[in-house]
């Protein structure tokens, strides 16, 4: 038990840290406490924003949503999207960072090109890919036909549609992993790599035994951030497939959007959000535990 006087002494001693934390803390409190409390509260109500019907129903939302077959499909799709997307984005981003290490002719313009996809407005990205993916007149199928292969139902084949959407996300967001991991790579001193090679380590050995461990916290950070962002994928689904064909590209955030802004069933939308929250919070706690162990705090 911490006695009050000891605690005060403790705070005063560490007042620097409290002081610099405070501004962010204040803004977060102002902006988020009320909305989050609302969301949590609403999840226990049958609440329609339009008709003002508000009825306390306890856990009924939770049970009805988790047994809703569309929600289940959307949850599975979201997990697939998140897992595959994150894996490929971080893997490719890391590979790109390695590829771009060091100086070479055309490096700077090439780097600008590689990060271009991230800069383009998501709506434009989706529109372009929608055109490229078009079955009859799209560029991709046109090239496939020219190469003598058959056309692919990128967006209209229920088994393929989700991966086509993931591909767009990979195209747009791999640069993110690339930039973060490159920043990490650049802050490693060259001597480290030189030492490794002097010790006789080959390229891949160096990468796995030296680079990856040093960059571990950045890699995990990127994995975490991309997992979260891919979990929330909405605008791509909205623009590319509308959740179809069938329910093959339904995602949780699309489900929530529909409940919240088309039907205005805020109760159900909040409940579905709570499910998302729990999953991500668990992942986040695991991550934080891991990273707080490292280093000395």
């Amino acid at each position: 038990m911490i006695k009050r006087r000891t605690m005060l002494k403790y705070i005063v001693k560490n007042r620097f840290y409290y002081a610099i934390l405070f501004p962010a803390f204040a803004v977060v409190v102002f902006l988020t406490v009320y909305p989050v409390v609302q969301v949590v509260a609403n999840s226990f109500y049958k609440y329609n924003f339009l008709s003002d019907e508000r009825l306390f129903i306890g856990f009924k939302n939770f049970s009805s949503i988790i047994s809703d077959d569309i929600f289940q499909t959307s949850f599975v799709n979201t997990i697939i999207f998140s897992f595959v997307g994150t894996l490929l984005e971080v893997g490719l981003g890391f590979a790109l960072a390695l590829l771009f290490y060091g100086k070479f002719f055309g490096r700077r313009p090439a780097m600008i090109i590689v990060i271009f996809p991230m800069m383009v407005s998501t709506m434009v990205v989706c529109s372009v890919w929608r055109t490229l993916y078009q079955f009859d007149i799209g560029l991709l199928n046109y090239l496939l036909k020219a190469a003598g292969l058959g056309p692919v139902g990128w967006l209209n084949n229920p088994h393929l549609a989700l991966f086509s959407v993931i591909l767009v996300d990979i195209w747009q967001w791999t640069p993110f992993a690339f930039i973060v991991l490159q920043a990490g790579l650049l802050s490693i001193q060259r001597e480290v790599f030189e030492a490794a090679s002097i010790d006789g380590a080959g390229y891949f050995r160096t990468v796995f035994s030296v680079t990856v461990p040093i960059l571990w916290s950045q890699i995990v950070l990127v994995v975490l951030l991309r997992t979260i962002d891919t979990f929330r994928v909405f605008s791509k689904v909205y623009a590319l497939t509308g959740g179809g064909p069938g329910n093959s590209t339904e995602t949780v955030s699309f489900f929530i959007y529909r409940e919240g802004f088309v039907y205005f069933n805020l109760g159900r939308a909040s409940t579905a959000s709570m499910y998302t929250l729990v999953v991500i919070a668990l992942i986040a706690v695991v991550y934080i535990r891991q990273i707080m162990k490292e280093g000395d705090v």
Partner: protein
Amino acid sequence: MKNRFILSVLVLLLAPVFFVLASPQPEATGPVKLTIAGRDGVYGNAMQYATDEYTKGHPDVTFDVLKLPYNSQYEKVVIDMKSGTGSYDLIMIDDPNAPQFQKAGWLASLDGMLKSKGETLDPDFISAAVKLGRYPYADSGTLYALPHVGNVEMFAYRTDLFDKYGLAKPATWDDVLADAQKLKQMDPNVTPVGFRGVKGNPIVSGFLPIFWAFGANVLENNKATVDSPQALAALQYFLKLKAYAPQAVDTWNSAQVRDALYGGRLAMVTEVWPSWVGDLNNPDKSQVVGKVMVTAHPRETAPSSPVIGAWLLGIPKASKNQSAAFDFLMYVTGKDMQIQLADQFGIAPSRKSAFQDPGLLKKYPWFPGQEAALENARARARTNKWPEIETTFGTYLQLALIGQMSAQDALKTANEKIQEIIQ
């Protein structure tokens, strides 16, 4: 150094206040400023034109016209009206959403305003369109909104292809199927038929004319009847028709249908809206100038039932400029402005006199058919649960379309879910 640091941090933290004050503020202009929550695309251009013209004649009234996509406009308008802040003086309302707004009591009564100005509603308006703005939905209901765009769903076909292969204009849906079969055999370069297959509102909008023409109904006496034998017949027909549509039609939305029609790749389109066809005869945008005829839908066991999808204009009760808004409302739905908007932007009129204007008849030869369609049009079910019903129906329709569910199962499940929704 420490003090300077703290000082600069404090200054930066007070930055939000600075942002709020220094942020570019809209200038106050003129005594009356009306804010209109409108739609984008041709509707936005038309509204902008109308407001500009109005300001020329009434310099003390200026406008802020918001041009928003369908969903965004709906979200914004709902949230604003619920909060009662009165941000908007006029709002565009898609007719299926009107019951929600009317039931919630968010709109001002236009009957009241007409009476206070000593006027009555002009009978020139097509009554099927006006009825949508009434609550309850009857000719005697209170008027809460006027039809600004008399959108009615139509059918389009390529006259040049039909002439070439000796086909007559289809009178029934069976004719459509027969024509599609013939076209497929005779012309491999053109896909016989196209429609919207994206689940939800798109597929439902495309399917309803067929559904109704087979005598089926979504709701009857407050019960869901989507699994009736007539509904099954309609859906089975629809699946047969799919064989003559492009392979990717399951993911087609209006942009794809429009581009295919304008690009000359479709012989028939089962669902066109007036705003889609405005540029059909514009050589800068269309490759099928003069080759497309727009007409009312075929019939089947029941008469042709065009789907009405009017855009209404209403005045939120919380608006602080109701009288001025009302004057503009009368102006923009007046005969002159409707003719101008139809001429320049392809906005479908809602007045008989506009449909009969000689200049418009020359530009849009299908106007007589469109007027007839509007007068005989059928509205979608008047319930404030329509978005949920439509989305559910649309999901199962599409599952049947892509073959993941049999037609029978799809309709049965859809019916159960719709019945739950209206409980």
